């Protein structure tokens, strides 16, 4: 399968400031990739590079095999839908008029926008001025314009800001439909816990560099963070548990009826077996894999160490 997005060793400098350095990854059709990074990590810069709005200082960006900043850039952009961070629209126009304008720019029939507005739930507000829209409604209008002309690549910068939980669920359902249609989707998000289960792969960016790019199990494996195990026991028997696991796990927290243990992924089965042998005093065991947030923080910390 050919990659929709192919980024290779890209760097972007603004004067002396290095916004991106040595970033490379690929994204295939029908996949969702999440760009994870703190503010100013370079996520938006990366999206501008993919749109051909800025030119890389080094390396290459290819969308559908073409250079988006090259002579055929406009043709490349026709295949891309883009939702900018904190999207804005001229307030004096209605939703219908704005969609008609963007449809014409993409060479689509102006009426094509109406169905998209229905799809994002703005059907009733279609003839209202955009200045009367709430933040969530503007965000949905932004999503609707990104879907004009059946794009093959969607670039969504913070798509769920301003959406309430119900709308977020609808958004992720829409994402699944688009993915099933073979659209490649790249989205950036701060809501790591939320995006963890929705994306196929994660590109973690810190200070303009790609810290890691893989799916969650592979990230968990490669970062090799300790598993967190919570053991609930009958009161005042934690000592027996500590005896059983001594030397095999670190104790993160201790209460009369509860222990929080940290252990290597490889030692997990052995450790659980030992705890199970304690019999009746164990009431419950919960194991927790390191989440995306923990992985990102660990990778950032390692980068900080490597730099200093």
């Amino acid at each position, binding site marked *: 399968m050919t990659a929709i997005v192919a980024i290779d060793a890209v760097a972007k400098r603004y004067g002396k400031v290095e916004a991106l350095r040595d970033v490379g990854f690929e994204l295939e059709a029908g996949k969702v990739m999440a760009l994870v990074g703190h503010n100013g990590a370079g996520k938006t810069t990366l999206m501008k590079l993919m749109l051909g709005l800025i030119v890389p200082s080094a390396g290459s960006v290819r969308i559908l095999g073409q250079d988006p900043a090259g002579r055929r850039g*406009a043709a490349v952009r026709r295949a891309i839908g*883009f939702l900018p961070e*904190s999207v804005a629209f001229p307030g*004096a126009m209605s939703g219908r*008029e704005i969609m008609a*304008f963007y449809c014409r*720019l993409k060479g689509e029939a102006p009426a094509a926008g109406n169905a998209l507005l229905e799809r994002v739930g703005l059907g009733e507000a279609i003839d209202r001025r955009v200045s009367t829209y709430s933040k969530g409604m503007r965000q949905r209008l932004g999503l609707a314009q990104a879907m004009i002309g059946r794009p093959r690549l969607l670039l969504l910068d913070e798509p769920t800001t301003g959406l309430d939980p119900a709308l977020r669920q609808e958004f992720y359902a829409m994402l699944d439909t688009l993915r099933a249609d073979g659209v490649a989707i790249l989205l950036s998000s701060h809501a790591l816990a939320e995006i963890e289960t929705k994306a196929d792969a994660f590109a973690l960016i810190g200070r303009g560099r790609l810290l890691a790019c893989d799916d969650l199990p592979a990230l968990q494996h490669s970062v090799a963070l300790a598993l967190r195990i919570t053991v609930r026991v009958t009161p005042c028997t934690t000592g027996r548990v500590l005896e059983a696991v001594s030397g095999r796990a670190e104790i993160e927290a201790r209460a009369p009826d509860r222990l929080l243990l940290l252990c290597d992924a490889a030692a997990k089965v052995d450790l659980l077996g030992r705890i199970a042998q304690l019999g009746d005093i164990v009431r419950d065991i919960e194991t927790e894999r390191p989440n995306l947030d923990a992985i990102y923080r660990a990778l950032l910390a390692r980068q900080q160490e490597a730099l200093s």
Partner: protein
Amino acid sequence: MNGALVIAGQELRAGLRNRWVLATTLLLGVLALSLTLLGSTPTGELGADPLAIVVVSLASLTIFLLPLIALLLSFDAVVGEAERGTLLLLLAYPLARWQVVLGKFTGHLAILLVATAFGYGAAGLALVIKDGRAAGLDWQAFGGLIGSATLLGAAFLALGMLVSVLVRERATAAGLAVGIWFALVLVYDAALLGVLVAGQNRLLSADLLDALLLINPADAFRLLNLTSAESARALSGMVGLGQTGRLPLWALLASLLGWTLLPLCLAVAALGRREP
């Protein structure tokens, strides 16, 4: 090309929506009407073509007002979108940068054309009603006025567009736009007159004066309207300049077109380098 037309249409629609078109048409119309209806009082009924008188009055009005309107329309074009956060999305659409510049310019020019045609047209209509005749009036001069006013507007729209692409902040663009108007429309002529008077015609040769008049779009417009027709020359008091200045029509038109094309090309180049 299609993308440029879509943007032009949107600019015109926005101009109708935010009352820019209405306001400028009314402003030009009211001023033109008052010039027309009051204009015959000072001249009396001398038998001069009344429409020619109106054209001379309107030309003077146009020199001051139209550049200002054009600059106010266009200074916001790019920097305003950048500040409101809509430029990034617009450029992410399948458009070349020249289409953005040309589209916005065309849309603004359409707004100006509507305003001058309707505003000055109202004055012409009032004259016909007052005078009771339409045939035999100097309609050619009137048409020339609307056409040259459009050219003048285009030149200042292009200058405003260039400013809008070059600067980072809307307030800077507004200041520069007013500065351009002040320099080219007000100060330039006063300075030229000062040098002429102080130098007693010796500092400036006739050729140099011609060149200096030619490189200012406002003066090119003035010469185009006030010296082209015989009747207008007599009425405008530009007899002297019209005779010493032997500037042909094509040179005046070329000046106005040059002032339009050069800033537009520079604006396209500058927008191409601008990183949103």
